[in-house]
C-alpha cells in the first residue's frame, strides 16, 4: 500500500488542472506581451485566470498579481509594506512566532535594517489572540502579518477579527494563506485582508505558480525588475501554463470545500483519536480550529526522522518537525512556539490528508504508527529512563 499523507508539503496535480495547462505548452504558446494573435490569446487566457481567482477571493482582477509561488508573494507583500512604512517613518511590524520561514526570514532581514519586529505568542493551542494583536499595534506600526493557517499544526487564525482590528487602526494587514487557500473559504473584503499570498501546488495545482493579492491603492515594491508584466510590479514572462493550471485548480478546490471539509474532518479526527491512544502522545494545536486534513502529534521518547523512515518502508509518506529532517540542529520553530520542549518536538509526526485518502488508509496509518512508535521506543534509552522512573514523563 502507498499512502500519500503529506499534502501540506505539496499535492498531486488534479486532472482538471493538468488539462487546463496542456494547450498552453505547445498550442497557445505565444508570449502574452506579443501583439500577434498567438500572444494575445495567451494574454486573454491569463486575464481569465485572474478573473477566476479574483472572484473566488472576492476582489478585483487588477488586485491579483501572479508570482512564482507563496514565498515570492510573502516577500513582496512584506517588503512593500515595509517600504510604505518607511516613507511615513513607521518601522514596526507585528507578526507571530510560528510564521513560515518565507515570512520570518524577511522579517529578520528587515530587523537588521532597523525595523522593530514584535512576534506574538501563539499559545499552547497555536492560535493568536486578536486582543493581543490590538495591544501590539503602535503608532509606528506599518504592517501586521499573521498566517491564515499554520503549515505544521494546521491551526486556523481569527483572520476576520485581526483584519477588523487592523482596518480600524489603519494598519496594513497581510496574511500568508498558502495552507488555507482552496481548503477554507476566503473573502478578502469581509475579512478586511489588505494583502494575501497563496500557492497553486497546495491545492492540486502546479508548482511554480502563486498569487499576491494586494488591495487597490497599495503601492507594491518590485522584487523582480523587468518588463511591464503584472502592472509593472513583477517582471518576467508569465508562466502561462502554470497560471492556467492554478486558476482551474483553485476554482475546483473552492467548489469542493464543503464536501472535503466534511470528509477530511472525519478522517482527521479518526486518525487523531487512534494516535492519541498511544501512551504519552499529545496533539499539537487546537483540536477543532485547524485545517480539516491536518494531524500533528508528538510521541515522547522517540525521534521523528526514524519514525518517518520506518513509515516510508510501510508505504506511508508523512513529515516531522524533527531537527534531523530539516538539516538544522533545532526542531520545528512551530512546535517550540506552542511550548513543546526540544526533546518532545523532535518526536513529532505530521499527516496532512487530501480527498484521495480513505478510511481504510486511516486505519492502516493508525495501526502502523503505533507499531513503529513501539519499536522505536523499545530501542530508545530515553524511553527506558522514563519507563523505569529515572526521569518523569513530559507528556502524561
Amino acid at each position, binding site marked *: 500500500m502507498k499512502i500519500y499523507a503529506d499534502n501540506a508539503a505539496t499535492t498531486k496535480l488534479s486532472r482538471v488542472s493538468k488539462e487546463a495547462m496542456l494547450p498552453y505548452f505547445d498550442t497557445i504558446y505565444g508570449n502574452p506581451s506579443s501583439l500577434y494573435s498567438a500572444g494575445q490569446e495567451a494574454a486573454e487566457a491569463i486575464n481569465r485566470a485572474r478573473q477566476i481567482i479574483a472572484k473566488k477571493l472576492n476582489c478585483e482582477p487588477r488586485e491579483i498579481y501572479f508570482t512564482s509561488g507563496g514565498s515570492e508573494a510573502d516577500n513582496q507583500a512584506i517588503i512593500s509594506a515595509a517600504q510604505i512604512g518607511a516613507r511615513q517613518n513607521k518601522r514596526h511590524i507585528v507578526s507571530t512566532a510560528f510564521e513560515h520561514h518565507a515570512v520570518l526570514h524577511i522579517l529578520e532581514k528587515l530587523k537588521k535594517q532597523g525595523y522593530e519586529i514584535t512576534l506574538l505568542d501563539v499559545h499552547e493551542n497555536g492560535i493568536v489572540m486578536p486582543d493581543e494583536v490590538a495591544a501590539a499595534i503602535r503608532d509606528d506600526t506599518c504592517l501586521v502579518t499573521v498566517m491564515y493557517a499554520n503549515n505544521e499544526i494546521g491551526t486556523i487564525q481569527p483572520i476576520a477579527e485581526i483584519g477588523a482590528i487592523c482596518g480600524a487602526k489603519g494598519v496594513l494587514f497581510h496574511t500568508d494563506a498558502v495552507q488555507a487557500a482552496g481548503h477554507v473559504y476566503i473573502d478578502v473584503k469581509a475579512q478586511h485582508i489588505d494583502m494575501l499570498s497563496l500557492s497553486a501546488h497546495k491545492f492540486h495545482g502546479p508548482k511554480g505558480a502563486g498569487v499576491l493579492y494586494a488591495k487597490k491603492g497599495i503601492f507594491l515594491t518590485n522584487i523582480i525588475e523587468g518588463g511591464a508584466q503584472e502592472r509593472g510590479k513583477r517582471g518576467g514572462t508569465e508562466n502561462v501554463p502554470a497560471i492556467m493550471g492554478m486558476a482551474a485548480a483553485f476554482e475546483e478546490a473552492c467548489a469542493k470545500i464543503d464536501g472535503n471539509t466534511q470528509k477530511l474532518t472525519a478522517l482527521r479526527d479518526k486518525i487523531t483519536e487512534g494516535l492519541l491512544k498511544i501512551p504519552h502522545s499529545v496533539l499539537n494545536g487546537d483540536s477543532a480550529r485547524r485545517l480539516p486534513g491536518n494531524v500533528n502529534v508528538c510521541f515522547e521518547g522517540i525521534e521523528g526522522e526514524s519514525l518517518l523512515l520506518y513509515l516510508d*518502508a510501510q508505504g506511508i509518506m508523512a513529515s516531522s518537525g524533527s531537527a*534531523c529532517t530539516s538539516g538544522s540542529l533545532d526542531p520545528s520553530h512551530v512546535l517550540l512556539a506552542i511550548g513543546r*520542549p*526540544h*526533546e518532545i518536538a523532535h518526536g513529532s509526526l505530521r499527516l496532512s490528508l487530501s480527498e484521495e485518502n480513505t478510511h481504510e488508509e486511516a486505519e492502516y496509518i493508525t495501526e502502523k504508527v503505533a507499531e513503529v512508535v513501539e519499536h522505536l521506543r*523499545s*530501542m530508545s*534509552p*530515553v524511553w527506558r529512563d522514563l519507563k523505569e522512573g529515572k526521569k518523569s514523563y513530559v507528556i502524561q
Partner: protein
Amino acid sequence: MLYSEKVMDHFMHPRNVGIIENADGVGEVGNAKCGDIMKIYLKIENDIISEVKFETFGCGSAIASSSMATEMIKGKPISEALSLTNKAVAEALDGLPPHKMHCSVLAEEAVKSAVEDYYKRNGINYDKSKFPDCESCDYCSEGKCK
C-alpha cells in the same frame, strides 16, 4: 535516496540492540534536546569486548551508526575499540550525508565513553586526553544543548 543501502539495512535491521544487565562498562553520549542519545553497554573479558549492546534515541543515521559501531568492536580487544574513528564507521556504512556525520561522531564517542566507564569502575589508569569530554562536541561548543 538520502541514505546508502547499508545505512538503511542497519537502520531497518539494527544489530546488537538491547541492554546488558551487569555490564562492565556503560557509555551514554548526546542530548535529547539535540535529538540524539546513544548508550552502549560492554561486557569485557580479558581485555576483549565479549558482548556489546546499544540503545539509541535518534534519527536513521544515528541508529545505523550505533549498529555498525557495535558490529565493528564486537569480539575485539579494547585497544582496537578505542582506535575506532567516526570516519571508519561512516565509511563502513558507505558514507553518511554531510549533515549526518555527527551521528558517526556520537558512535565513536559512545564506545570510548563505555570503555572509560569500564576503566573507572576497575581503577585502571588511562590517558584522559584520549577520551571525549562534553566540550569537544559541536553542539556544546555552539551552546545548542544548554
